[in-house]
């Protein structure tokens, strides 16, 4: 009940911000879509193919998963960076709910938004490709969703680093190509690259979108990978938060 109240509080805050700054939200979404359209157009122009030929199907699905993945990773990390910048980090530390739990509540909320966005994007993709790219939603979404906690874990570890270093922009900028790199790795079928966070889940989601049937062992490996990285990320975060409190730098900017 306590966590639901906090979740409701966070939803209310986000709705207020979205309502007041709706133009900014629409603009940033539009910018992402324009960039994506530009990327597809460039690839098709250089390669000489067409949308119907299926040569950019991998990029299209990859983009949808990337959007979701960046949301997952940006959750706790982005929050710490934003709260530090606004100098409100200390105030949210003064709540009965531990900072880590509050960040987790916010990250879950963002993940929910990201999932909604992923579903919508995949549906739009189906329409844009005239139904040619028929995506098996359940296994694709399940693979992406199961893999997301691993990036949440990485995000938590980086959030802990941000509590100490405060160089938010640099770490955030470096994180995006990191996600892109993890997603692009050919980790499916399973190989050593599957040990990295999110790589196996992303590759499996792409394979599923392309029509490969995923077995239960694939989902088990994705879940195990996620659980390990989430636990490790939270552990690192907690150690770094304790250290930041000891040093007294929690609210520094």
């Amino acid at each position, binding site marked *: 009940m306590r966590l639901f109240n906090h979740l409701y509080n966070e939803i209310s805050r986000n709705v207020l911000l979205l309502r007041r*700054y709706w133009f900014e939200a629409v603009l940033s979404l539009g910018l992402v879509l324009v960039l994506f359209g530009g990327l597809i157009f460039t690839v098709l122009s250089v390669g000489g193919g067409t949308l119907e030929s299926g040569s950019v199907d991998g990029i299209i699905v990859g983009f949808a998963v990337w959007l979701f993945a960046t949301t997952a990773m940006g959750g706790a990390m982005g929050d710490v960076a934003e709260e530090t910048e606004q100098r409100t980090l*200390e105030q949210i530390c*003064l709540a009965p709910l531990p900072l880590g739990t509050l960040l987790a509540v916010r990250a879950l909320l963002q993940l929910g938004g990201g999932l909604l966005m992923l579903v919508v994007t995949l549906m739009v993709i189906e329409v844009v490709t005239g139904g040619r790219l028929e995506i098996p939603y359940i296994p694709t979404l399940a693979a992406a969703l199961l893999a997301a906690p691993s990036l949440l874990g990485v995000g938590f570890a980086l959030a802990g680093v941000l509590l100490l270093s405060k160089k938010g922009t640099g770490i955030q900028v470096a994180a995006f190509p990191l996600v892109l790199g993890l997603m692009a790795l050919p980790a499916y079928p399973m190989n050593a690259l599957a040990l990295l966070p999110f790589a196996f889940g992303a590759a499996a989601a792409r394979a599923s979108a392309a029509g490969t049937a995923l077995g239960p062992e694939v989902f088990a490996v994705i879940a195990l990978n996620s659980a390990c990285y989430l636990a490790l990320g939270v552990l690192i975060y907690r150690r770094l938060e304790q250290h930041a*409190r000891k040093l007294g730098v*929690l609210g520094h900017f």
Partner: protein
Amino acid sequence: MTNNLLSLSGVGKIYQRAGQEVVALHDFSMSVDAGEIVGLLGPNGSGKTTFVKLVTGISAADQGTLTWRGKPIGRMRLNDNLRQIGVLLEGRGACYERLSTLENARYFCRLREAQFDRRYFDELAELLEVTDVKAPVRQLSTGNKLRAAMLGCLIHRPALALLDEPTLGLDLFGIESLERLLRHGARHGTTFVVSSHDIHFIERLCQRIVCIREGRKVFDGQKTQLLNVSHQYLLSINTGSPSALDRLNDAIRSLALDSAWQMSSDLSGQLPLRDHQQACEVLAALQPCLKEFQGIELRKISLHEKYRRLIGEDKAESGKIG
């Protein structure tokens, strides 16, 4: 049930700054009872903000014990103490610039797991003279931003409010309304620990004063006790001529006072006086030569002067200045 809200015993905190150890608090003990308004005074870097950070867990103490209502802080179930504490830190409080004063108050009230009471919010806003509660905070002036932050700190009806520099950026009227708000809070059971460099604000508001210097407590007692440390009055005279100065010195010598005439320039100076009676005796003795003086002022010594003297004397005693 104990009346003691907060207690610190032998608390110490050392920061590492550029490879050097900086003692922020040393063997610091203090307790705060329900219903008090405590003024925390100290020069910059004396440890006032560290005190607030340690009490709220933003920073961890290196040694000593901190208790909230008799229970050790840090071992509390569900951070219960934080539900009952409101904090304004270094003149900044609970405030998102993109939300309005009302939205901020509602958000931070719920974050502290309390029921938002619109009527109570309106009451606080009226006391603080906040008129526009619906404009995003980023559109407000510095003083109004602080008022919004203050509302966010007090909206959950905390048992203890730790206000670090609450007058920063407030104009005269803002300070008066803040004073009203704090008195109102105290009447309704909130305990305040107010740290500020605005000594007049502290003097008007607080009955108990705690002075910190270089992380050590140098005074903890009632304001009247601090004001009565040695002398209550100060007589300032500008003699105007060497002959008048001689006559003044003769008159003072004849009185055999426990304090000495302190020259502030060639022809003027000050004389601390113990009490009202001594002030009358000195004025009576000086009456024959009063007409010769160019200026004379007798006033009660303020907390400001007592505080400066306390801090200054301590510095001299520890051999760190002069």
